């Protein structure tokens, strides 16, 4: 079981609800993923569109754990008010805290993020801060009281995968007690497997599933990759070696006595 903010889950995959080609495909993808935590948002919409109401009724019927986000917020103040609105609407104190500092990269503003996190923690929120892979920012968020930090692998929606795997490894090594979830930039199941092998606690993704040719199948592929990566981590990976070492025993190698006549041939 996976413990996240005092709740237990079977799946270590957190899945977004945006960008699917249709509500039906989203539904199939959520089912195939096995994800028990899904991200949602809130936006200005016409009361006549009925889209928001229908989406909300459907989401409620799934009986999954909701993680609302503050996507699009640019300041701590905007993010705090949006989080309070999300708590009122979705009836949860969980918030995926996003405070964007740059339009081109959608990179979080670390200063505003930390300020908003402090305020929301004081107000009783369970804060899931979307951060970069910067170690000091992650440490400050943890010192402020965050039990969870969600570093990016690459910019949101880019699908680039692990642009700086060393930085992610460092985060894991330096924050062994913190729940670390890689959020953003994951493009392929192998990216998810790799961060899970590093010991990350979970993966949050959306575009990689929703923009796949067949989203439900991709949701399943990610679920398997995340499970495989976690099992690999728990099983303990072998140490890398600089040189080759034969796995087949050398004792009793055939034609050994002829080697002196053909010195170029090595042992595989």
């Amino acid at each position, binding site marked *: 079981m996976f413990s996240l903010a005092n709740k237990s889950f079977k799946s270590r995959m957190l899945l977004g609800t945006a960008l699917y080609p249709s509500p039906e495909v989203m539904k199939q993808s959520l089912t195939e993923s096995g994800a028990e935590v899904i991200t949602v*948002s809130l936006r200005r919409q016409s009361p006549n569109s009925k889209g928001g109401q229908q989406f909300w009724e459907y989401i409620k019927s799934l009986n999954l754990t909701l993680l609302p986000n503050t996507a699009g917020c640019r300041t701590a103040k905007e993010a705090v008010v949006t989080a309070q609105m999300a708590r009122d609407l979705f009836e949860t104190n969980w918030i995926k805290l996003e405070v964007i500092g740059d339009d081109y990269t959608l990179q979080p503003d670390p200063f505003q993020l930390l300020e908003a996190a402090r305020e929301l923690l004081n107000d009783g929120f369970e804060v899931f801060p979307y951060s970069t892979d910067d170690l000091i920012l992650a440490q400050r968020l943890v010192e402020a009281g965050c039990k969870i930090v969600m570093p990016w692998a690459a910019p949101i929606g880019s699908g680039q995968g692990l642009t700086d795997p060393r930085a992610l490894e460092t985060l894991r090594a330096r924050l062994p007690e913190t729940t670390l979830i890689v959020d953003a930039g994951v493009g392929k199941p192998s990216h998810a497997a790799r961060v899970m092998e590093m010991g990350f606690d979970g993966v949050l993704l959306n575009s990689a599933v929703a923009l796949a040719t067949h989203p439900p199948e991709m949701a399943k592929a990610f679920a398997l990759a995340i499970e495989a990566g976690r099992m690999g981590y728990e099983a303990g990976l072998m140490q890398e070696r600089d040189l080759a070492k034969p796995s087949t025993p050398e004792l009793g190698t055939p034609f050994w006595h002829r080697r002196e006549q053909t010195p170029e041939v090595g042992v595989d």
Partner: protein
Amino acid sequence: MQVLVNGKELEIAQAKTVSDLLQELGYAQGSVAVAKNGEFLARKDYASTVLEDKVDLEILLPMQGG
């Protein structure tokens, strides 16, 4: 009375409170979140919050998100 709803000016004739306004605009109860003049307004306070001229309201609905 003029109010600002999601950045658009609206002329309101009947509504006296935020709760009235939500009903007048056709928002379903229980499916919106509101901020008033940039500050969060709790659902329990909609009925008791009297609209003032030029008040700036943000009315948000659930939406798909990543």
